């Protein structure tokens, strides 16, 4: 896949005297020329507000914005563009489901079931829902390797379970969770499933009809798109029955002095001037990813994880977290007693960008019994030689701290 590196201008630079190796795509991905240019072209040739102006630019912008929606629909195989809501990202999408759907539909005695590995954005909204509605927040039990035992998971879903919320891919463990099976089980009990797809949509083919999920949220910036744009998919019937949580322009049909009603889907959930340039950039990102092929990207990213785990496993003092197989996107680890921040600083001096900290997963850190970890995450522009550089960097860090600790 090394032919794609040249599509990403940012990667062609030196950091601290070394060629940049970007291993933090789990936090945000880099952007190819195609996406940068799409945003630029939008601003240079069609910028105006959407769904308003009668003028030519207005319809160009509207076409570009709605065209991006259709691209996203096709990309995740949603049944209709009515089911594709543009917003700021995964966090915003999950909060919409929590603040609208869950607050309206959950009550005391109901249960919300999530995993201890959830990102704060798929955890705190449910804590809040539980507080407001009186529903109980419960957790799946994770196996020691950070996976779900299918039998236990199935048994955890009961008649009380009104909502299951889970990441398809954990942003720390890399675990690919069996969301399709979970969807089947929760539906059999009459509940809904909300999927945090922030780390899955960038790396694998996601088909919302095949998964039969009720809601699915992801962020453009992790899939080579711009920051500030994200998507919430929801089943049409559910979205139709939900109330908006943001009111104002763009989302109304008729407005009276004391009462108003809403536009149809998806616009009723897109109050205010939308993220037009972001959506256009996201459309270009989808085109770019499809031109390579999601299956190709999936195989590549899984291969890099396997390769990294193998190479890093050869180093003494490296502990890695999460399952050995069925994982993608990243390797989370610690090196001896070197604190991850110190490690990240040493690697940064080598031009290698990794993430260090709790990765917005404080409960998971407690479950792992660590206070912080280092994470190297991979994408289509990374290759084995990046991992070789990482391993060399880790060796250097070991040596360096071996000396200063003496």
């Amino acid at each position, binding site marked *: 896949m090394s032919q794609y590196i040249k599509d990403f201008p940012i990667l062609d630079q030196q950091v*601290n005297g070394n060629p940049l190796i970007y291993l933090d795509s789990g936090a945000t991905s880099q952007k190819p020329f195609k996406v940068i240019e799409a945003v630029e072209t939008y601003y240079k040739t069609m910028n105006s507000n959407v769904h308003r102006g009668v003028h030519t630019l207005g319809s160009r912008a509207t076409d570009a914005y709605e065209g991006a929606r259709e691209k996203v629909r096709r990309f995740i195989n949603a049944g209709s563009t009515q089911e594709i809501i543009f917003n700021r990202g995964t966090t915003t999408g999950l909060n919409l489901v929590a603040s609208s759907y869950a607050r309206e539909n959950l009550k005391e005695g109901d249960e919300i079931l999530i995993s201890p590995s959830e990102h704060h954005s798929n955890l705190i909204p449910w804590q809040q829902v539980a507080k407001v509605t009186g529903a109980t927040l419960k957790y799946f039990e994770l196996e020691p390797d950070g996976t779900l035992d299918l039998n236990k998971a199935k048994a955890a879903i009961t008649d009380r379970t009104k909502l299951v919320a889970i990441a398809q891919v954990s942003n720390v463990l890399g675990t690919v969770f069996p969301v399709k099976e979970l969807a089947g089980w929760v539906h059999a009990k009459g509940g809904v499933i909300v999927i945090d797809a922030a780390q899955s949509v960038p790396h694998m083919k996601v088909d919302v009809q095949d998964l039969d999920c009720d809601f699915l949220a992801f962020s453009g910036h992790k899939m080579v798109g711009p920051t500030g744009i994200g998507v919430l998919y929801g089943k049409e019937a559910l979205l139709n029955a939900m109330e908006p949580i943001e009111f104002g322009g763009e989302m109304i049909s008729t407005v009276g002095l004391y009462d108003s009603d809403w536009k149809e889907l998806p616009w009723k959930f897109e109050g205010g001037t939308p993220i037009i340039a972001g959506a256009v950039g996201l459309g270009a990102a989808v085109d770019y990813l499809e031109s390579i092929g999601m299956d190709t990207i999936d195989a590549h990213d899984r291969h890099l994880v396997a390769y990294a785990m193998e190479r890093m496993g050869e180093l003494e003092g490296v502990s890695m977290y999460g399952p050995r197989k069925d994982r993608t996107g990243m390797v989370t680890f610690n090196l001896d007693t070197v*604190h*991850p*921040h*110190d490690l990240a*600083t*040493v690697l*940064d*001096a080598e031009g290698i960008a990794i993430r*260090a*900290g*709790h990765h917005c997963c*404080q409960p998971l*850190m407690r479950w792992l019994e660590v*206070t*912080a970890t280092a994470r190297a995450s991979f994408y289509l522009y990374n290759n084995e030689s990046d991992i070789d550089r990482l391993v060399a960097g880790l060796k250097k860090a070991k040596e*360096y*701290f071996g000396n*200063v*600790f003496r």
Partner: protein
Amino acid sequence: MSLDDLYRRVIMDHYQQPRNRGQIEDGSITVDLNNPTCGDRVSVQMRVKNGIIEEAMFEGEGCSISMASASMMTETVKGLDVERAVYLVDLFSRMMQGEEIDTEEFPLEDIEALQGVAKFPARIKCATLAWKALEKGAKESAN
């Protein structure tokens, strides 16, 4: 950028053998602070009598810079009056911004080793965490 500017021997010494780590039995003030972006956590305890910081200790989890800085901070402020301590917090944060510090005004001693942190912007917050806790505690003691 040289790592040796950051990881000075004194820093690693404080990291590995922290001074004043633990709890004060009759600690009158405890301030817990964390750095939510990275997970570093520090708890600073101090006993203040007649405006003097008689005792200062810390506990916490974090990187070498945050823990070494906490250790040095407790050494520095013991015996100082509260106002002086707050003033030193200000000097320290200015030093972290890369300002030269008048050492007549602030005898740095071990803290001098932290000067290199200024060259690593991502790590400044690590170094200032315990000092922020001190400042908060000192101000509380005045109430």
